[in-house]
C-alpha cells in the first residue's frame, strides 16, 4: 500500500516536472517580434462589466495602433465583483498577459512578489512622454523599494475627505455649514434634524474621520499623524484624539443620529434616495456638481481636511505590465500612447464618435444612449484624465481645477513608503482579525470607547503589535534615509 503510494507520488512529480519544462519552453521560444512583421497582440485585462461594443471599438483602436506602434490590443474586461479573485488567480498562476489593472494594497503586494515589470528604464525611453505627462507625486507614490511598477491614472492625486450635506435641509433650517470643521461641530444640526425630520437619518453611516496617514488602511492600528511633522509610527487607537473622536461618535450613536445597526451596516446610502442629512466621502474638484447631478437634488460639501497626497490616493487606479508579458516594451509603447494621445484615449474611453457620443462645435461631447448601454467604460481605470473630452455639462476649467487641486495638496509622511510585511506576517494576520472585531463598532460609535478601546489595545498588545510597530519604524527610518 505504502509502496504503491510512493510510486504514484513519484509518477505525479515527474509529470509535474515535464509540465514545468513544457511551460517554460513555451515562454522562451515564443516570438518576440512586433517591430517588423506581424503586429504584436497586447493582452490587456482590466476591470468593469464586459461591454457589447468592445470588439467594434477595438477594431478602430487596432487600426490606429497598427499604424502607430505596429501592435493590436485585446482588451478583456472582468466584472467588478469577480475582479479581485480572478485577477489574483491569473497573476499567481503566471497567466500570459501584458497589461493588467491593479490598485491599492493589491498593487503593492503583487509588485513585491514580482508580478509586475519594473518600468523605470522604459519610462526614460518608450514611456518618455508619458512620464512627462504624469503628476510627479503619482510616480513618487507608486514607487516600491525605489522602482515604479505601474502607471497610475493621471487624475486627482490627492485625497480630500469632506462632509457632504443635503442642501435642501441645510437651507430649510438655515444652517451655516461653512463653520463645520470637526465632527463635534455637527452636533447642533444633527439635533435639529433628528427632532424635526422623521424620515431622515441624520448621519448616513460613516466611520469617524481621523487625521492620520495609515499603513495598510484605516482599520489597522498603524498610523503616522499628519500634524506635527511626525516621523514616528503610532498605534492610532492609543491616542487621545482617537478616544475623543470615538466618544463624540458614541454620543451621536446614543442620541440616535446613526442607524442602530451602523457597525454591521451594509447600506451604501445611494445618493438618489434622499433619506440622509450628512455623509462623508472623498472629494475632487466639482464633486458637488457631480453628486448633485447623480442625486437629482442639491448637495453641498465642506472639507474635513486639507487635500493630502497619500499612497492610497495615488494608487487608486494603476495599469501594470505583467512579468509574464512577452513584449513589455510594446505594452509600454501602448500605455504611453494611451495616456498621451487624446484621440486614442477618448476612443478607448468614450467609444466611436457618432455611435457612442456626439461632439458639438466647441469640441465638447454628449453621450448617446449606446455609450451607456453598450460601451460603458469606467473612466478612472483606463488612464490620463487630462486628455479627455469634456462633457457639455462639465465646467470648462474642470481639468485646470484638477491640476490646481493636485498642486495644492501636501505630501503625506509615508508617500512612497510601502511596508514590507514579510517579517511580521503572523502578527498582521492576528491584528487584522482583531481590528475587524473592534474597529467597525468603535468607529461608528456603536460601543463605548472608554470600555472597548482599552480592551482593543490589550488584545493588540497580546497579538504582538509592538513588534510590528518596531518593524515599521525600522523600515521607515531606512526608507527615509534614502530619500
Amino acid at each position, binding site marked *: 500500500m505504502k509502496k504503491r503510494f510512493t510510486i504514484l507520488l513519484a509518477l505525479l512529480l515527474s*509529470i509535474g516536472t515535464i509540465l*514545468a519544462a513544457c511551460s517554460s519552453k513555451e515562454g522562451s521560444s515564443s516570438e518576440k517580434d512586433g517591430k517588423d512583421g506581424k503586429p504584436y497582440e497586447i493582452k490587456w485585462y482590466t476591470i468593469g462589466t464586459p461591454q457589447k461594443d468592445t470588439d467594434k471599438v477595438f477594431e478602430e483602436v487596432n487600426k490606429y495602433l497598427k499604424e502607430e506602434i505596429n501592435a493590436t490590443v485585446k482588451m478583456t474586461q472582468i466584472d467588478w465583483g469577480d475582479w479581485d479573485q480572478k485577477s489574483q488567480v491569473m*497573476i499567481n498562476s503566471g497567466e500570459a498577459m501584458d497589461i493588467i489593472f491593479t490598485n491599492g494594497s493589491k498593487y503593492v503586494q*503583487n509588485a513585491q512578489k514580482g508580478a509586475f515589470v519594473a518600468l523605470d528604464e522604459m519610462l526614460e525611453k518608450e514611456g518618455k512622454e508619458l512620464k512627462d505627462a504624469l503628476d510627479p507625486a503619482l510616480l513618487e507614490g507608486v514607487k516600491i523599494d525605489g522602482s515604479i511598477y505601474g502607471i497610475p491614472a493621471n487624475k486627482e492625486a490627492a485625497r480630500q475627505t469632506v462632509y457632504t450635506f443635503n442642501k435642501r435641509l441645510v437651507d430649510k433650517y438655515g444652517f451655516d455649514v461653512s463653520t463645520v470643521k470637526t465632527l463635534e461641530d455637527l452636533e447642533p444640526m444633527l439635533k435639529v434634524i433628528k427632532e424635526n425630520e422623521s424620515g431622515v437619518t441624520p448621519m448616513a453611516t460613516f466611520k469617524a474621520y481621523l487625521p492620520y496617514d495609515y499603513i495598510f488602511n484605516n482599520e489597522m492600528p498603524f498610523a503616522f499623524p499628519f500634524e506635527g511633522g511626525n516621523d514616528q509610527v503610532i498605534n492610532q487607537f492609543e491616542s487621545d484624539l482617537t478616544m475623543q473622536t470615538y466618544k463624540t461618535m458614541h454620543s451621536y450613536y446614543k442620541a440616535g443620529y446613526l442607524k442602530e445597526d451602523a457597525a454591521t451596516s451594509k447600506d451604501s446610502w445611494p445618493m438618489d434616495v434622499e433619506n440622509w442629512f450628512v455623509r462623508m466621502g472623498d472629494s475632487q474638484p466639482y464633486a458637488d456638481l457631480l453628486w448633485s447631478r447623480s442625486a437629482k437634488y442639491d448637495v453641498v460639501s465642506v472639507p474635513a481636511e486639507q487635500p493630502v497626497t497619500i499612497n492610497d490616493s495615488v494608487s487608486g487606479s494603476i495599469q501594470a505590465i505583467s512579468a509574464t508579458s512577452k513584449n513589455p516594451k510594446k505594452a509600454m509603447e501602448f500605455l504611453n500612447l494611451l495616456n498621451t494621445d487624446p484621440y486614442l484615449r477618448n476612443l478607448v474611453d468614450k467609444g466611436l464618435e457618432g455611435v457612442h457620443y456626439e461632439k458639438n462645435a466647441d469640441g465638447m461631447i454628449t453621450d448617446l444612449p449606446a455609450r451607456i448601454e453598450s460601451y460603458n467604460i469606467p473612466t478612472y481605470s483606463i488612464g490620463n484624465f487630462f486628455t479627455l473630452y469634456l462633457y457639455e455639462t462639465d465646467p470648462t476649467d474642470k481639468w485646470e481645477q484638477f491640476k490646481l487641486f493636485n498642486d495644492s495638496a501636501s505630501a503625506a509622511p509615508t508617500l512612497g513608503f510601502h511596508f514590507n510585511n514579510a517579517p511580521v506576517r*503572523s502578527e498582521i494576520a*492576528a491584528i487584522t482579525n*482583531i481590528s475587524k472585531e473592534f474597529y467597525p463598532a468603535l468607529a461608528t460609535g456603536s460601543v463605548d470607547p472608554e470600555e472597548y478601546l482599552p480592551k482593543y489595545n490589550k488584545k493588540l498588545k497580546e*497579538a504582538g503589535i509592538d513588534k510590528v510597530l518596531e518593524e515599521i519604524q525600522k523600515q521607515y527610518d531606512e526608507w527615509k534615509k534614502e530619500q
Partner: protein
Amino acid sequence: MKRILNDIYKNRIWLIMVLPGTIWLLLFAYLPMFGQVLAFKDFRIHPDGFFASVITSEWVGWENFKYLFSTNDALIITRNTILYNLVFIVLGLVAAVTTAILLSELLNKRLSKVYQTGMLFPHFISWVIGSYFVFTFLSADSGLLNNVLGWFNIDPISWYNEPKFWPYLLVFMSLWKGVGYGSIIYLASIVGIDKTYYEAAMIDGASKWKQIKHVTLPMLKPLMIILTIMNVGRIFNSDFGLFYQVPRDSGTLYSVTNVIDTFVFRGLMTLGDIGMSTAAGLYQSVVGLILVLIANYIVRKLDEESALF
C-alpha cells in the same frame, strides 16, 4: 513481477471500470496537489509561469503555519470550529435520518413529496440571501423579532451584539439549510430496503417503532457510518457563509462565530499570501486525515464491514 501482471490481468474488468475515474482523479485532483508545497514556501512570481514560481520560491519551513497558532485567538477559533462541527455532525445525522424515516412513513405519499421538495429549497438559497432573511428578523432597527418582543413589553434586543444567542442560531440555520438535502440519501436508501424484511418483522408482530429500530436503522447504518466518517474528515473546515455572512461579520460576535476559515479569510485580507492560505488548508486537511484514520480504525474494530477502508 509476473504475479503482479497476472493479478492485473485477472482484475482487468474492474481496472477498466475505474480507469476513467482514475484518470480524472489524477488530472484534476492529484496533479494540482503539488501546489501544496507552497505551504512551505515564500511565494514569489517568476516570469516563466507558475511552475517556475513554485520551484524558485524560497523554502521557509513552518513559517506560513505560525499565524494559525501564535495568537490567543487560535484557541478560540479551534474550539469554535470543532464544537460547531461536532454539533452539526450529531444533530445533522439525527435530523436527516429522522426526517427521512418520517417522510417515508407518511401515509399521504403526495404530501410527503411536497414536503421533500419544500425542504430542498434552502439548499438553493445562498448564505448572502439567507443572511438578508435572518436580518429581517433580527435587525435592531426594524426587525420582526424585536417588534414581537415589543408586544410583550420586552426590551428590544440588539441581536447582532449578543453572542449568547448565536450558537443556537447558527446551529438552527445550519440544520435549516442541510436537513432537506441530507435526508435525500437516507430516503433513497430506505426505499431501497427489501420489503420482505418488514413483512417478516410484521409477521412477528413488531410494532412500527420496533420495525424502525430493527430493520430501517440497521439498514441505514453503513451509510450513517460512512457519512459520519467523511464529516469527521472535514471537522476543521466550516461553511464559510454561515459563519461570515449570517452574523454580518459583526465584531462583537467573534467569540462565538470566528472559526478557522473566517480567521484565515480575515487575516489574509491585508496580506493576500497564497503560501499562508495553502498552509491553512493543509493544516485542516492533515488534521482531517488523522481524525478519519482514527475514526475508521475504531469502526473497523467494532464492525469491519462498515469501515471505509
